């Protein structure tokens, strides 16, 4: 049996109100690649951050080579635990060598930079990575994404790493770069590194890992040798759960079936060849893993990204939605994914945030009508029971759920024809979630066509009449409510056919 490098015992982590990790026990051996799987929000990122010392667990202990350690970022680095995140941390304006030695430049006896040592060491690392790059003369920013990713890894092994954690390292790589990465990973495995490999892609997991651990809702579900898993079992372990929530039921008879939004072969810079046809009163769920193009699809419909091909019809008439303003004028509204960054002006009042899209209606000769503004925002606050002492309350001080209700109040001032919801219940508590679902039903029954993007599969399965699965900017499957299951959706989302 190989030597144990890392052992986690009973690790738990809580954020205010949410248990992110519960009683995780996990081991990592020398010379193995451990795959880590789980849906969005299963707790993978939190676990990595604990291992690289960025978060401290509330409970449990971590043993490194048999000794208990308390990790912070510095200690983790000192022990040789390196994490490589999806977002690159390359400094594009610096040379490859400078990037490899960022923050720990070799020095001469006099304390000056030692370019010779830097060049020598850089070449050694680049040879390990099979990279044919001139370390001193090349700016890192001029290299391809794949090579930059490998340089990230080079930064980690330059620090005498023993444990390498890779968070979806292949998500931005082409086929050739991915193959290259695999060969490097295999080489490190032979050298006795412990490697944790996170991926949403089933083929990759089965290709490169020795063991696979599955996280779901903060619990470690199962760890087995890769040869003892098959795709169906793995997907089942990732998504199966008791349905803890009841979703409100829609009155099916109110559906008119009249086409409200029709996209024919629509492409933008972010999504490709999209076909969809949504009827009045219908709720369409869009599923997919992070980066599949779901948000981008909504924003393409909303006029944020320019449509480069195909056509959009609204109520059977061909329309050219060329800006957000024209989308709003067509009755298309969006509740964006990140309400703090994209949804709200946090330092302004509830009232200001509700009326921001409706000045045309609330003004006369460019002068705003304060009485109408108060009426409209008061109506919104009362309709959604936003808990606030005053309409002039600064939005940044409200809870997440109430903030979301402010945005909902804004977009429903006029009954919208098409409501685009991007992660509508992210970060809000269960009771507000329920209110959100009820409002979706109410709007649908009133004839609004709803397109909902959510990373919470049960929510998509529970609320949507139809589910479109996206991958790499395309719709890869359309499933009816009856045929859709977590397994099937994940199967398509992760690259099955």
């Amino acid at each position, binding site marked *: 049996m190989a030597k144990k490098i890392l052992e986690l015992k009973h690790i738990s982590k809580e954020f205010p109100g949410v248990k992110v990790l519960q009683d995780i026990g996990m081991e990592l051996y020398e010379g193995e690649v451990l795959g880590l799987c789980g849906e969005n929000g299963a707790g993978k990122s939190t676990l990595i951050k604990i291992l690289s010392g960025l978060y401290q667990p509330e409970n449990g202990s971590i043993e490194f080579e048999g000794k208990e350690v308390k990790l912070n970022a510095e200690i983790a680095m000192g022990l040789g635990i390196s994490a490589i995140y999806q977002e690159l941390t390359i400094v594009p304006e610096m040379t490859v060598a400078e990037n490899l030695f960022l923050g720990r430049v070799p020095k001469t006896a006099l304390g000056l930079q030692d370019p010779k040592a830097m060049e020598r060491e850089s070449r050694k690392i680049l040879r390990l990575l099979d990279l044919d790059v001139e370390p001193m003369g090349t700016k890192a920013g001029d290299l391809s994404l794949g090579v930059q990713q490998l340089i990230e890894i080079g930064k980690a092994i330059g620090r005498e790493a023993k444990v390498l954690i890779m968070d979806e390292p292949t998500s931005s790589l082409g086929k050739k770069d991915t193959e290259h990465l695999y060969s490097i990973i295999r080489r490190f495995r032979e050298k006795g590194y412990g490697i944790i490999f996170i991926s949403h892609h089933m083929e990759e997991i089965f290709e490169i890992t020795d063991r696979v651990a599955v996280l779901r809702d903060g619990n470690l579900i199962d760890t087995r040798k890769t040869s003892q898993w098959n795709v169906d079992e793995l997907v089942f372990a990732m998504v199966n759960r008791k349905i803890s929530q009841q979703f409100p039921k829609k009155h099916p008879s109110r559906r008119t079936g009249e086409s409200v939004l029709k996209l024919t072969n629509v492409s933008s810079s972010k999504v490709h060849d999209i076909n969809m046809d949504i009827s009045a009163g219908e709720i369409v769920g869009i599923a997919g893993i992070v980066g599949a193009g779901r948000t981008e699809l909504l924003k393409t419909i*909303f006029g*944020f990204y320019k449509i480069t091909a195909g056509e959009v019809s609204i109520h059977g008439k061909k329309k050219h939605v060329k*800006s*957000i*303003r024209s*989308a*709003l004028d067509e009755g298309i509204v*969006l509740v*964006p994914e990140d309400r703090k*960054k*994209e*949804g*709200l*002006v*946090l*330092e*302004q*009042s509830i009232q*200001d945030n509700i*009326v*921001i*899209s409706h*000045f*045309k209606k609330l*003004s006369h000769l*460019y*002068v*705003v009508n*304060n009485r109408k503004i*108060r009426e409209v925002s*008061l109506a919104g*606050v*009362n309709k959604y029971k936003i808990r606030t002492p*005053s*309409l*002039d309350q600064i939005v940044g001080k409200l809870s997440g759920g109430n903030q979301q209700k402010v945005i909902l109040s*804004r977009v429903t001032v006029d009954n919208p024809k098409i409501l685009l919801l991007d992660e509508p219940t992210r970060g809000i508590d269960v009771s507000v979630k329920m209110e959100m679902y009820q409002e979706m039903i109410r709007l649908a029954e009133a004839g609004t066509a709803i397109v909902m993007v959510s990373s919470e599969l049960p929510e998509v399965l529970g609320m949507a009449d139809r589910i479109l699965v996206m991958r790499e900017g395309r719709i890869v499957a359309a499933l009816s409510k009856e045929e859709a299951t977590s397994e099937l959706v994940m199967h398509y989302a992760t690259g099955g056919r």
Partner: protein
Amino acid sequence: MKKTYEKVPVRIKGLLPTIVILVIMCAFFTIVTDSFLTYKNIKNVLLQTACMSIVGVGLTFVVICGHFDLSGGSVIALIGILAAKMLLAGWNTGLVIVLVVIIGALIGLFNGLCVTRLRLVSFIVTLATSIMAGGLALAITSGKTISGMPENFLWFGSGKVGGFPVAAILMLLLCVVFHFVLSRTVYGHKVYAVGGNSDAAHLAGINTKNVVTLAFVVAGCLNAVAGIVMAGRLGCALSTAGSGLEMNALSGLVIGGTSMKGGKGNIIGTLLGCLIIGTLTNGLNLLNVSAYWTDFVRGLVIFLAITFDAIRWFMKKE
């Protein structure tokens, strides 16, 4: 049971400290000098503050949008000189005023388009514009002073209505008008939204680029008006006329509570802030403090004002 909520003018709140500072300062100068609290001196302070406040009003729009305009001082000089050249060529005063305000607007449009369409940093763009305008002023005059402009043009800077300086009346009038624009019009609301969170404003259907560009145009027009007033006050046009004025106006803004991060501020605050700077300069003059020390004290007051604001902000956070 439906709730109704009482009405509070949120954006005017928070002006109290500025008013307190102004009152304390006035009280201090009234006690230590004989001549501060006289009708003549008050008129003087208002006259001296006029140009700064007019520039400050335009700047308030730009800064609430989250940008800077450093071109005020040089544009004042350039506008004065262009006006003088046209007037001396015998052009009608009314026509000249319209023309120079349009030129100011075009300079603002240039700044605005550079910032929104070319995505250049406003600080740098307006620094370049400022240097260009100043350079043009020097090149046209070869550094010489131009005098001999007709009385009806100089009236805006040195004339009086019922014994009260026209410049001060103009300043107050512009403050009232642009306070209304900022607080009551659709455009004003959009300015606050864009400055508070440009991405959110964009997704809410606001054409953020046009809002920002228009703010620079407003600033350009008001810089031109300040240029007219300045030429009238000095009785001549010269290439150093408004030098440093934009920085004084910016200090007034900061003291008046406009946030350099954008999204916050108002015209009344700017006016009060500029009055504080003007009163301070005037009072120190009356005390016969040397001009060099005046600058030091002005710097100190700005520092204290922003520190006070930062401390209040921290206390709120806690």
